[in-house]
């Protein structure tokens, strides 16, 4: 699989606050890559940094930030806006407020195609919008085009957002907690939809979530983020079978896995909260909450390989956990 999105050593600062500290991530063409972590760990900021959508005042730096081999670091705002919505698209956590209340669904969908495909006629844009609304499972798509966002439910609006993101057949779709604001039944429908689109269209999806249940269901690959760093990255099966980073193990022990966790066994929890990282901080950011913290954890933390395409960021040796099952 060839790399579509490559991020290495990404830093994002908002004034004195370091939101992302050297995060690295590779999304291959056609894969569903989940980025997981607690609130405030820098998942969304990483996604916004990739899209070039950070708020004014945020400072971005990276050793590598490339999309389809093209370096995004020195791309002008104008050049980035040509990529966004065309080859890379993004949907958000808030379907209720992410559509403009003053324009119809049709107007908001067709303007994407007309922006990026100047040769497309109005009729072609409308046809494409109708086709995609049907594709994301919306009934009577022709009628929906004339409706306003407030006339649709949250689940429908998120489907519209997805359809809108697909207008120009992007290679990468970044979905930032797309189901968090939705009912559980609707969540499942949206996830099935995303998985189906990924399969049928060969789309790469970077799915940001804090829900490990979602990860287990849809991800090919998982990156675990903690305090602005990607601390572990692995194929989904390998990560669930043999997590290496103590934080990943802590996260997994917090969710019940049928057949793995006994009925009377208490679920795990990670003591403490995500720390605010002061400027000039060195060493492992998890060490204050880690049961395996040692003196070396204050120094440089090595990136270790634990298997094919399985890396983690820790002072512990790759085989340290063999004797210790998860949720012990």
């Amino acid at each position, binding site marked *: 699989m060839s790399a579509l999105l490559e991020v290495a050593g990404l830093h994002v600062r908002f004034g004195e606050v370091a939101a992302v500290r050297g995060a690295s991530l590779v999304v291959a063409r056609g894969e569903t890559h989940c980025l997981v972590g607690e609130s405030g760990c820098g998942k969304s900021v990483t996604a916004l940094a990739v899209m070039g959508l950070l708020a004014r005042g945020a400072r971005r730096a990276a050793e590598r930030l490339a999309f389809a081999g093209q370096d995004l670091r020195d791309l002008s705002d104008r050049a980035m806006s040509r990529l966004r919505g065309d080859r890379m698209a993004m949907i*958000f956590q808030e379907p209720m407020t992410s559509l403009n209340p003053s324009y119809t669904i049709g107007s908001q969908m067709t303007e994407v195609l007309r922006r*990026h495909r100047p040769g497309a006629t109005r009729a072609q844009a409308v046809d494409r919008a109708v086709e995609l609304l049907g594709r994301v499972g919306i009934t009577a798509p022709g009628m929906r085009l004339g409706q306003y966002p407030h006339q649709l439910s949250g689940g429908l609006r998120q489907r519209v957002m997805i359809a*809108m993101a697909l207008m120009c057949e992007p290679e990468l779709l970044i979905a930032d907690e797309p189901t968090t604001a939705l009912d559980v039944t609707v969540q499942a429908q949206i996830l099935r939809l995303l998985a189906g689109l990924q399969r049928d269209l060969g789309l790469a999806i970077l799915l940001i979530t804090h829900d490990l249940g979602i990860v287990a269901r849809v991800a090919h690959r998982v990156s675990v983020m903690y305090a602005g760093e990607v601390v572990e990255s692995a194929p989904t099966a390998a990560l669930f079978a043999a997590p290496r980073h103590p934080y990943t193990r802590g996260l997994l022990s917090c969710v019940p896995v049928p057949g793995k966790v006994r009925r009377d066994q208490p679920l795990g929890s990670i003591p403490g909260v995500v720390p605010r990282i002061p400027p000039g901080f060195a060493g492992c950011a998890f060490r204050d909450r880690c049961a395996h913290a040692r003196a070396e954890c204050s120094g440089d933390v090595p990136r270790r390989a634990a298997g094919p395409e399985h890396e983690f960021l820790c002072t512990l040796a790759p085989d340290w956990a063999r004797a210790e099952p998860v949720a012990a």
Partner: protein
Amino acid sequence: MARFLLRRLVVALLVAATVMTVSFLLTRLSGDLAISIAGPNATQEDVDLIRRAYGLDRPLWVQYLDWMGRALTGDFGESYFFKDRVSNLIAERLPVTVSLGLVGLGIALAVGPPLGIVAAVRENTWVDRAVMLVALIGQAMPSFWLGLILMIVLGLNLGWLPISGTGSWEHYVMPGIVLSFSAIPSLMRLTRSGMIDALASDYIRTARAKGLSRLSILVKHGFRNAAIPVVSIAAVQLGFMLGGSIVIETVFALHGVGFLAWESISKNDFPVVQAVVLVLALIYVGLTLLADLLNAVLDPRLRTA
């Protein structure tokens, strides 16, 4: 939607009826009309004659109902000073005032919202502060003073524009500028705060994620939503301008309704005063209704609710 408008219409009619009553009562409160019409050298016989001639000897409620009844048919009586039907006087003067108001509103709309957008885009920078300062100065400046300054600079020193009268479109430029100053600050502030809210919204983030051009993001997606309150305030501001043009029409000797009001107040020409107050109030009520209507047109959530 229809019920919403019907409710607004009923409120507008009630306001109009109240204004009619108040304008009637205020002219009666300002003293004995017969004495002031007759003038300082009049004899008691003259005053009694005038009182009978204008029907001021009748009980107040009879006068009130009589005036109301006639006003409803468009008959506002006769001006004793101009010796003409009041309706003729107003019909003659109203186009001048409405033109002035539209010129003032046009200038205000050309200046206020664009400045507000610039200030919002450059929020908390020197540009923003400079724009806000200009708004503050504009709001604090008395209109008659600004009018006189413009007359001296543009009219006398530079000789670009006529300083008074009603002859051509050029006569409307200076008063229009002065009038617009009363509306620019509020239109600008409202646009600025609306744009700041809009630009921080999720749908603007979506518009950026779609790769739309900067212009489309700011104007099509941002201003379209920020404009909803601005448009309705602009309609109400036009009402303020028409009513407030009395000072400016006097300064520039523009023979509009405001000038007519000033003349008839100073002459205690009560039929004219009552009618002018009523007409301006009705226009104001109408514009408020128009503002509600525009709101409903612009905001799809109101339209289909």
